[in-house]
């Protein structure tokens, strides 16, 4: 178990999590459905978590993994609030298409 | 007003005490009850092996009676069909031909007589309505079938066999009380027959 990671270069983790992160970014830019945008953001956070854990493991420092907890805590709290807002909004507009939300423009 | 059952309780909207509100004693009490029943004597009757006694006036499968000569009593008057609340009875009348006197007691008879057992509610009104003492409900059960059509019982299933030994005994349903009951003015049409029977 000790040499668990030695086979895998850190670069691989960086590339993987960056790819996931960028897919998340793309999702935010690409989609109009608020829920999917929301999920893309979750994907971004998760990609970050992966990188944090990887760094943590390669540094031999538990702080990174502890930070992941806080990220998760934040993600959970964000979801709670975000979905609450979404539900409130849906009650009024019956839509979650973010482009419908353009009453504020102009 | 008199209470209908001894178990009824009067509902009161009082505030529950703490002990009541935590519900646990009540739940435990409930569980104790179920547990008690767990060990009680079971009331199940293992049907095919054990059978429960029928009541004397159990109303089961219908039978169309023959008279002592073996002729069908039914004259297709249709009173039973009229009386039937479930409209389960249909019949087609026919005229007795020459040579059929042994088969049909009177000049008119039911060529087709059908009871839909899926509709029948076994109330026995047909029996009461019948002026010719032709239809009775027996203590036999209606047999099941695989198709709906099979539940429409025609004369083949309703009319009792010719054979004296195999005649269906409905004497239980012809007790004195029944006879007395049928003397009621409302059943005047029956009385005619009864008189004639006595006569």
């Amino acid at each position: 178990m000790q040499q668990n990671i030695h086979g895998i270069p850190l670069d691989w983790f960086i590339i993987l999590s960056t790819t996931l992160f960028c897919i998340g970014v793309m999702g935010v830019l690409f989609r109009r459905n608020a829920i999917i945008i929301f999920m893309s953001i979750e994907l971004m956070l998760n990609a970050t978590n992966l990188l944090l854990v990887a760094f943590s493991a390669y540094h031999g420092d538990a702080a990174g993994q502890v930070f992941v907890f806080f990220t998760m805590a934040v993600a959970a709290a964000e979801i709670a609030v975000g979905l609450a807002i979404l539900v409130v909004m849906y009650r009024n507009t019956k839509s979650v298409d973010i482009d419908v939300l353009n009453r504020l423009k102009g | 007003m008199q209470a209908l059952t001894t178990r009824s309780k009067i509902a009161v909207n009082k505030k529950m005490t703490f002990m009541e509100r935590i519900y646990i004693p009540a739940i435990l009490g409930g569980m104790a009850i179920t547990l008690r029943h767990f060990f009680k004597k079971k009331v199940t009757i293992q049907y095919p092996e054990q059978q429960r006694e029928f009541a004397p006036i159990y109303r089961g499968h219908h039978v169309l009676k023959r008279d002592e000569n073996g002729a069908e009593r039914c004259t297709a008057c249709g009173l039973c069909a009229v009386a039937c609340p479930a409209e389960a009875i249909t019949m087609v009348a026919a005229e007795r031909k020459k040579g059929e006197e042994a088969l049909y007691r009177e000049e008119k008879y039911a060529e087709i007589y059908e009871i839909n057992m899926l509709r029948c509610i076994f109330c026995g009104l047909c029996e009461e309505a019948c002026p010719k003492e032709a239809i009775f409900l027996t203590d036999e059960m209606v047999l099941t079938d695989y198709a709906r059509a099979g539940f429409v019982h025609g004369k083949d299933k309703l009319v009792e066999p010719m054979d004296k030994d195999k005649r269906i005994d409905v004497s239980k349903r012809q007790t004195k009380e029944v006879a007395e009951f049928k003397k009621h003015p409302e059943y005047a049409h029956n009385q005619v027959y009864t008189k004639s029977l006595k006569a």
Partner: protein
Amino acid sequence: MTQDHLQKYLFLVLGLFAVLSALMVVFTKNPVHSVLYLVLAFFAITGEYILLNAQFIAIVNIIVYAGAIMVLFLFVIMLLNLNKETEPHKNPYLKFAAVITSGLLLIVIVGSLKAADNAIATPYQGGKGLIENLAEVLFHQFLLPFEVSSILFLAAMVGAVMLGKKDIK
């Protein structure tokens, strides 16, 4: 095949799985499918955590993300009945731009992060992901953030409840 090779192949398979699932999250029409693909991606990432010997994080990842957050998502999608596949078309140019932008971002970041391996010289130490070590760090060094995150949750709870309940006026 040595254990190292096994690890590598495992990494690659899981990574591919994660990336494909993530792409499906973005490109699937139906939100419910998106959620399920995201759950798949999370599982793949969990697998990577286990490769990194971070079992605790892996489990927590499943409990929090897959078990709670995504269920909440599904719940809301079902509650609001949002599973229609008729999403109005976004301007194709915008879509194209989105893909290009994120692709560029990827290239830039990966390009500049290449060969980071050499820099981090600290040799890998096992067992840091074990719960005892994490607790040690969490409840000593990171005690304050831990406490403060309770405020975070309290605020989120109050907020969600406030938004969720109907006004009695």
